[in-house]
Each structure stands twice: as structure tokens, then as C-alpha cells.
């Protein structure tokens, strides 16, 4: 029985561990997961590790160091199916704010001896470096979506992770729209569903934790936010949070700010064919073809 179970590995790059914790948070379902998969590598849960290759790898975190660039290739090589989880892994995360500034200046302010800090100028998504089979969004990811992705993998079906807007979830829940009824700025119309419209349910605008939806019209929403008397600087800040470097959110901020980010390409070009696949997978995400579910 044990040998027949597919093996699972969970990897961490630059991240806060919140998405891995979502897996541990599954509580009731965790035993089912452990029953269906052989948890071979998951340092957050156990120091005991089994060598690869692994059938399913979940990758958390973004690429921020030269070492990361090498390690993610190792992970890719040892993984049959690679699923990235969370905003860091799918768009570079909040730490991608460095992409709009000078990371050495930051390091000089934060660390007593910044010369010991080896870091890249940018924080980039996993798919910018290696082919990715499926991207699960969110900061953090949603537990039920994670379980669905795992269940879907185990049964060979497609995950139910629609790329439409958060507004759909608002309307399914019967929420009163905070923008229309209360004049509250909300990123819901350009944001990928998945959270169940958590913030609008509690009378807050959407913060865009799940990144861009399938066909984000950020220019139109920007006009609307201006109408709601939001200053341009604040609109830029709204787009530049956990998914600041996701293609369409990055461009939205740049269009308003009238300047481009300092670094626009990942610092270490991946191997040509990988680069191609990664780009295709990311573009398809923004265009909203079903999120890369068909293998890389």
C-alpha cells in the first residue's frame, strides 16, 4: 500500500511559511492527505526526509537569491508535477516591492553588515525560472482550494480553481457591493477569485491577495478609483502589495506612476526552453486560459 502512494514534497523559498501552514491547518483532512500521499519531504512538519524524485511538489516562496535560482532547478528536476502555492511563488510576493527600488539601499538600512547579505536585485515568481504545472494563488492560499488541487491530482481530474473575479464570489454570497453601496475602493473586479470574497463580506474593499483575474481591466478600475477620490499614489500602493509584480498589477502601477520598475526581467535568465514555457504559462494566466492545469 505504502509504496503505491504518490510521494509529496513541500519546498520553501523566500516566504513567510503561511502557505505551508495552510496545509498543516487542514486538521480534519490532514490525515486523509497523509493517507493518500507519502509525505516524503516537508521540513515544516518533519525533519525526516526521503530522497526524490517526488510525484507532487508544492513550492512556496519566490526566487530572491543566487542559491534559490539553482535550488529551484533541482526541485524541478526531482518533481514529476510542480505546483506553486501562494503569492510569493506565483508573482514574487510582497518582497517583490524591491523590484521597484534599490535592494542594496534596503539592505544598508536593515542590516548592520549588509556586505554579508547575498541577494538578487529582484524577487520573482517560480514560473519565471522553471516550468510550472499549476499555480495556486493567494496570500495565503485557501485551504479548500489546496485540498481540491491535491484531490484533483490524486484522481486525475481538473481542479476547481476558477480564474474569474472576486465579484463572482461576492454575488454568490449575496454581499452588498462595497464600492457601489458605500463608495469603498475595492480591487475585487480585477482580482482572481479564491478567498470567497472575504474582505467585502466584512465591509472592506478587496486587497488583491489572489493577484490578477483572467482578464483584468486595471485601467478602467483605476479611473473608478480616481472617481472615488483616491489619490494616484494611493492607487499605486493598492496595486503594489502581495502581487505587486504580477504582470497586470505591475503595469497598472507603472501606468499611473508614469515610470517603469527598475528591473523588468529576472536577473538570471532561465534555460531557453524553460523560459519559454514559464512565460507562456504566466501569460496564459493573465489571459485566463485555465490556469496551466495541463502540464508544463
Amino acid at each position: 500500500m505504502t509504496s503505491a502512494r504518490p510521494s509529496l514534497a513541500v519546498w520553501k523559498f523566500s516566504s513567510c511559511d503561511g502557505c505551508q501552514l495552510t496545509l498543516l491547518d487542514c486538521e480534519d483532512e490532514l490525515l486523509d492527505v497523509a493517507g493518500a500521499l507519502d509525505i516524503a519531504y516537508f521540513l515544516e512538519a518533519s525533519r525526516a526526509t526521503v530522497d526524490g524524485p517526488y510525484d507532487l511538489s508544492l513550492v512556496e516562496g519566490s526566487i530572491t537569491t543566487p542559491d534559490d535560482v539553482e535550488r529551484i532547478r533541482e526541485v524541478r528536476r526531482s518533481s514529476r508535477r510542480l505546483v506553486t502555492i501562494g503569492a510569493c511563488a506565483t508573482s514574487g510576493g510582497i518582497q517583490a516591492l524591491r523590484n521597484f527600488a534599490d535592494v542594496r539601499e534596503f539592505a544598508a538600512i536593515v542590516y548592520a553588515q549588509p556586505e554579508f547579505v547575498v541577494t538578487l536585485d529582484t524577487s520573482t515568481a517560480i514560473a519565471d525560472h522553471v516550468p510550472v504545472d499549476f499555480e495556486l494563488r493567494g496570500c495565503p492560499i485557501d485551504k479548500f482550494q489546496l485540498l481540491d488541487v491535491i484531490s484533483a491530482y490524486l484522481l486525475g481530474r481538473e481542479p476547481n480553481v476558477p480564474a474569474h473575479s472576486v465579484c463572482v464570489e461576492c454575488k454568490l454570497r449575496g454581499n452588498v457591493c462595497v464600492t457601489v453601496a458605500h463608495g469603498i475602493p475595492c480591487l475585487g473586479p480585477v482580482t482572481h477569485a479564491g478567498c470567497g470574497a472575504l474582505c467585502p463580506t466584512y465591509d472592506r474593499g478587496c486587497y488583491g491577495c489572489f493577484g490578477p483575474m483572467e482578464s483584468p481591466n486595471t485601467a478602467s478600475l483605476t479611473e473608478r478609483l480616481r472617481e472615488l477620490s483616491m489619490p494616484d499614489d494611493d492607487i499605486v500602493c493598492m496595486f503594489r502589495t502581495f502581487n505587486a509584480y504580477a504582470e497586470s498589477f505591475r503595469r497598472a502601477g507603472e501606468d499611473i506612476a508614469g515610470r517603469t520598475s527598475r528591473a523588468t526581467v529576472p536577473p538570471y535568465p532561465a534555460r531557453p526552453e524553460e523560459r519559454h514555457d514559464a512565460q507562456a504559462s504566466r501569460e496564459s494566466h493573465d489571459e485566463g486560459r485555465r490556469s496551466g492545469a495541463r502540464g508544463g
Partner: protein
Amino acid sequence: MLLDVEGLGQLIRVLGERGLQVIGPTVVDRAVVYDEIDSADDLPVGWTDEQDGGHYRLHRRDDEARFGYVVGPHSWKRFLFPPRTVLWRAERGDGTFRLIDDRADISRYAFFGVRSCELHAMAIQDRVFLDCDEPDRTYRERRDAAFVVAVNCGEPGGTCFCVSMDTGPQATEGYDLLITELLDSDRHDFLVESGSDAGVEVLAALSGRAVDDDARRAAAEVIEVAVESMGRSLETAGLQQLLEENPEHPRWDHVAERCLACTNCTLVCPTCFCSAVEDTTDVSGGLATRERRWDSCFTMDFSYLHGGSVRSTTRARYRQWMTHKLATWIDQFGSSGCVGCGRCITWCPVGIDITEEAAAIRADVLPTAEKVEVI
């Protein structure tokens, strides 16, 4: 029959006593939504709504009107065609597949405060869900069990255009009871008429006064005033042909620049009926669930066929929605798909206005040579 304010409360009680779950307008999160109501106190007493493209606000009235607002973000389809419906669940045994019989009792609703446009919307959804080879069972059961208390509109909202669509403001059929609120400095009454045997029965259980000429005159005036105060209008003459002949009109590009493809317009629309089917399984693979949930022609997955979305641009999606609603719906179901309730205008986050879009195409029709057939 004429009821006073007390009598209105009695009506809600009587409906409850008949085993019906009374759903009516009530204020939640500073908007009028449809939810369970226990008494007349749950109604939006003394509230009115201000509505415009992408704009909705509640304001205090200077009277205690019970129906002094129009429709909000919810519609009755939420109850007849719920956002999510489990179609079936099944368990896997040792080489077996067993359907789980967990169908709940039929929900028996009394819809309280249904507007004329909404009665028309229900009639449209009846045609969609029931006049077909495979009538929808959930819809059928809930619809058959429902008791409908309609209310005539006295003060249309800023985005209403039922007069253009010939769907209001006066309810003409499709109700069990019909209320007209009569409110001025001298009186606060509710003229109640029955429209079915069930309605007659409920009326008989109420204690009210006989309708006098004065009340009749006041009720007629309510409608006259309402007809004159529509917030919007839509020219429907030749509209079907106009839209069908203008699939390449530059206005579609104009609207596509503004449209967010967020789906709000379709999900608030009381006639939109599209759904997706989702299959889920648990991690062990022992339990499978098939669920139907609201979908929209504005999502990419909606038109996803082998190889991609048929309508990949927002232009194509908006055009599909509006042309279906106002034109091809007529061929498909025998009436327009729009009842002029104004929800899609109010609840569009960027205030796109279906009446304005139609008017813009009419105002600037392309020369015939430039018209292209949609493929």
C-alpha cells in the same frame, strides 16, 4: 381590502402560520436585500434608495413608508435558482458507486414585496427553466410552492425603465396578492387585491376595511405618478434588428474599454440564468459531489471549448450579453430578456448603462455596407 399598518403585520404573520418562510425586503449592510422577515418591523421602514450608474445609497425618508424604495442587489432568483445547488453526491464502495439520497424538503416561500418588473422576470425564468424538455426540478418545486405578494411601485428608482419594457410599474398578473401603499398626511393604508384562490384564502383570514372610492382613486394616482418618474428609458422599436445588424459597431470597443468583465451585471439580473457545473471529490476519493453554481457570459471559462475561449475579448463578451438580452432572447424565448429593473446599471462597479449603450448604437448606425454578420 384596505389594511392599516397593523394589518400589514398581520398579513406576514398569517403567511408564516401557513407554513411559509416569508422572504422580503430588509436592510442589511445599508442596502435593501431579500432575506427572511419575521414581522413588518423587519421591512425597510422609512428608507428610500438613491440609484444611478454604479451608485447606490440609502436615505431616511420623512415618512414611515413601508415600500418607499425599489429593488436592491438581490432578486428572487436567489431563492428559485440558488447560487449553488448540489445536484447529486455519491460514495464509492468496493467497486460500487452509490448515490446518496440527501434531498432536503422543498423550501416553501412566501415572496413578500415583489415588484412588477420582478413578476415579469419570474415569468421569463419560468419559460427558461420549465418550458423545455427537461424542466428544472428544484425550480419547479420551489416555484409551485411559492406564494407571491406583489407591490405596486409608487416611486421608481434612478435606474428603472420598466415603462419602456412594458413590465411595470403596475403589477397585472402573476401574484397571489397585490399591495398598493397609500400614504399621505391623512392616511397610511395598504390596498390589497387578490390574484388567485390562495390569495383569496389569505385575505379572508385578515381583518381589514372595505375599499372605498377614495382609496381606489389614490391607488390609481400612485401608478400615474410612477409612470411619469422613470429614471431611465430605452427605445425598443426596432431594437432587435438594430443590435443584430451592428456587431461591428465601434461602440462595442468603447464599452470594452470600460467593462471590467466582472460579471456583476449578469449575477444581479433577475432573468440571467446561466450556470456552471462543478465536480468535486474529497482527498480519499470516496465521495464525489456535483454542484451547479451561477456562472456568467463574462467569464472566460463560460465559452471555453477545446483550445480556448470562444469569446476571449471583453468586447465579444459584452456584445454577447447585451445582444442576447435585448435581441436574440426574443427569438429564443419569445420576449426581451430585459425587464427594465435597472440592477445591471446600478450594480456595475463602473456604471455601464445598458440603455445608454443601446442609445449610442442607435444614434450612430453604421452605413449598411459596413455591417458584418457575426460568425
